[in-house]
C-alpha cells in the first residue's frame, strides 16, 4: 500500500505541476512556487488560450476527438475481425499474414512518413481529413492482441452451438464473439485512441490547413513560435492540460469494462 501511495505521488506530480502552471500568469510561471498556486488566473488563461488565433484550439480538440474516436472505433473493429479470423479459422497463409502484420510494428514511423505522403499525393488526397484518418486506423497491435485473446476467450463449442442454431459466421462474430472479446476490444480501442491522440508526426507531414490539425500538432506549432510570440508558452501549457482532459474522461468511461468477470463470466 505504501508503495502504491509513493508511486501515485510520482505519477501525479508532473500532472499537478501542469495544472498549477495553467492557473498562473506568465510572469509568475518562473518566479513563484511551481507546485502551488499563486494568483489564480485559470479562467483568463483558458479564455486567452481558446481565443488565440481566431479560436482555433477548440477546433483542434474537436478534430482530435474525431481522428482518435472515429479512428480507434473503426481500427478496433477491423483489428478485432482480423484477429478473430486468425484465431478461429484455419487457412493457408494464416501464420504468414500474422507474422507480416507483426513485422509492421517494427518499422519506424519516420520511414513510412514520406512514402505515405507521396502515395496520398498520387490521388491528390494530402491535406485532407482522410490522409490522417485512414492510416491511423491500422492497428497491428490490435490484431495481435485480439488474436491471442480470441484464441482463449472464445470457446469453439460456443461457435459450434451458434452454427447449429443456423447463425451465419459474420452474425456469430457480432453477436457471440464480440461480447466475449469485449475486454480485449476495449483495450485495443483505448490504446489506439491514445496512440492517435498523441501522434503528431503523420499530421505534421500530411496537413497544411490549420483547421484540420489535431491538438498535438497545433500545440507543437505554437511551441515552435514561442520565440516570436512568448505568450504562447503559457498557451501551450494550458492547451496541454485541456488536451489531457478528454483522455481522462475516455478512460473513466471505459474503466468499468476493465472489471473482471466480463470476459471470465461469459466462459462459465
Amino acid at each position, binding site marked *: 500500500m505504501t508503495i502504491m501511495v509513493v508511486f501515485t505521488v510520482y505519477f501525479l506530480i508532473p500532472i499537478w505541476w501542469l495544472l498549477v502552471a495553467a492557473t498562473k500568469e*506568465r*510572469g509568475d*510561471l*518562473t*518566479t513563484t512556487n511551481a507546485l502551488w498556486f499563486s494568483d489564480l488566473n485559470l479562467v483568463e488563461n483558458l479564455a486567452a488560450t481558446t481565443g488565440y*488565433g*481566431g479560436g482555433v484550439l477548440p477546433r483542434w480538440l474537436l478534430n482530435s476527438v474525431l481522428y482518435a474516436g472515429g479512428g480507434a472505433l473503426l481500427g478496433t473493429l477491423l483489428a478485432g475481425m482480423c484477429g478473430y479470423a486468425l484465431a478461429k479459422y484455419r*487457412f*493457408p*497463409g494464416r501464420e504468414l499474414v500474422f507474422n507480416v502484420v507483426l513485422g509492421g510494428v517494427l518499422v519506424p514511423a519516420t520511414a513510412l512518413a*514520406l*512514402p505515405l*505522403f*507521396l*502515395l496520398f*499525393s*498520387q*490521388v*491528390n488526397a*494530402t*491535406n485532407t481529413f482522410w490522409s490522417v484518418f485512414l492510416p491511423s486506423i491500422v492497428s497491428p497491435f490490435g490484431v495481435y492482441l485480439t488474436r491471442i485473446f480470441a484464441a482463449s476467450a472464445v470457446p469453439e463449442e460456443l461457435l459450434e452451438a451458434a452454427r447449429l442454431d443456423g447463425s451465419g459466421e459474420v452474425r456469430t462474430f457480432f453477436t457471440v464473439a464480440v461480447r466475449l472479446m469485449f475486454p480485449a476490444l476495449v483495450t485495443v480501442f483505448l490504446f489506439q485512441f491514445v496512440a492517435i491522440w498523441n501522434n503528431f508526426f503523420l499530421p*505534421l*507531414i500530411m496537413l*497544411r*490547413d*490549420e483547421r484540420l490539425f489535431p491538438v498535438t500538432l497545433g500545440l*507543437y*506549432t505554437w511551441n*515552435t*513560435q*514561442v*520565440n*516570436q*510570440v*512568448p*505568450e*504562447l*508558452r503559457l498557451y501551450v501549457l494550458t492547451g496541454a492540460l485541456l488536451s489531457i482532459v478528454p483522455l481522462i474522461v475516455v478512460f473513466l468511461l471505459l474503466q468499468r469494462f476493465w472489471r473482471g468477470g466480463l470476459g471470465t463470466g461469459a466462459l462459465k
Partner: protein
Amino acid sequence: MRTTTRAAGVALLALTAVTACSSGSGDTGAAASGAAAACEPAGEPVTLTFTSWIPGIEDVVALWNEDNPDIQVEVQTGPNGNGGTYQNFFNQLEAGNAPDLGQVEYDALPNFRVQDGLVDLSACDDVVAAQDEFVDWTWQQVQLGEDDAVYAIPQDAGPMALFYRADLFEQYGIEVPTTWEEFATAAEQVRATGGYITNFSQADVNQFAGLVWQAGGSWFGNDGDQWTVDLTSEESEKVAAYWDDLIERDLVSTYPGWTTEWDNAYNTGEVWTWNSAVWGANSIMTGAPDTAGAWRVAPSPQWEDGGESAGNWGGSTTVVFQGTEHVYEAAQFALWLNTSEEALTALIEAANLYPATTEGAALPALAEGVEFYGGQPIYDVFAEASTQVSPDFVWGPTMTQVYNDVSDGFSTAISGDQTLPEALAEAEESTVAALEAQAIPVAS
C-alpha cells in the same frame, strides 16, 4: 485463397502507383530546370496558396484579398521552418504539390535552390524594378551569387546590436563595451559581481554565424563550378577562439536558448547583455518582464576600435515554388506583402517583423521610443546596423545539417571535452561529406 489473390492485386496496383509517382517526379525535376520562368498574367481570376508560420499572417493576407478579387491568396500555417515546414516543402516539391508561395529564411534558400525548388523571378519586370527598395545585402542574399537571378523577395532582416542592462552597468561602474576586447574585460568585472555578461547558447548556431558574419568571414563560397566550405576560415576561428576562452573561464553562462531557464536568467538580472537581432527586442520584453525600463541598445562590440560592422541573425523571404502555374500573380503578391506600407505595417504589428526595405525600416511604427527600453528609439540603432551588414556572407546548401553538426560539436565543447574551433573543424568535415552525398561539387 481468394483473399490472398485480392491482397496481391491491391499490392500490385499500389506498387504501380508508386512507380508511376517516382518516375513522374523525376520528369518534372528535369523539365523545370533552366532559365527564368516566363512571367505572364493569367488573364483570369486565380487562387494562390501560401505557407507561412508568421503569427497573425492570415489578417495581413486578408487585406490583400479584399483589394484583389482576381488574385485570391489562401494561407496555410505550420511550425517554423526547421520545425517541420521545410521538410514538408521538400516532400511537396518531390510530390509536385508544393504551394505557390512559401516563407523561407535566407539561410535555407540555397538548400531549396539546390533541390531545384525555386522559381527565378527575374522575368517579372516589377520584381527586377523593386531591387532598389531593398537594403542592399538582403537583395544579394536572394540572388544566390547569380547576377541576373532573383530567387526570392526579401521579407525581414535581423541586423544585430547589443542589448544591455544599463542600470547594472551604471550601478557597478562598468563601461558599456564598444569592442570585443572591452567586452572580455567587462565580462571579468561582471563575473566579479556574481553575474554573467552574456549567455552562449550552443543551439543558436545562426547567432554564431552572425558573429562570424560581423567579423567579415563567410562559411561558404560558390564560384559556379563548385562550393567551398570554410567553417574554419581565419575570421571564424577568431570568433570561436574568443568565445571558447570566455566559456573556459566561466565568464559567460551556457543556458540553452529560448528555455524558461534562459528567460529566468535574464529576468533575474543574472545575465546582463545579449548581442542579438532586432527581433530580440520583443523576446526580452516578454521573457524578462521584471526588467522593464532597465534595458538599452548599443551597436555591437567591434573587432577593431572604431569599426563599423554588424552581423545579421535570421530573417525570411517569400519564395515562389517550382510547379506554380501563376508566377506573375505570385510575384505580385510577394511584392505587395514585402514592400507595401499597408502590409509591412500590419506585419510589424502582428509579429514584430523588421522589414527588409529601406522605407519599411523607417515606418512610423518603428520610429518611436520604446517604453521597455526607457523610451530609447531603439530601431534607429538597428537601422544603422542594417547598413553595416556585409553583403558577402554566403549560406551553404545543407544548412540544417551544418547547424546540427556545429551545435552537436558546441555541446561537446561546452561540457569541456573539446574546443569550439575543434567543433568547427569537425563540422566542416561532415559538411563536405554531406555535400558529396548529395553529389554537390565541393572543393576539398
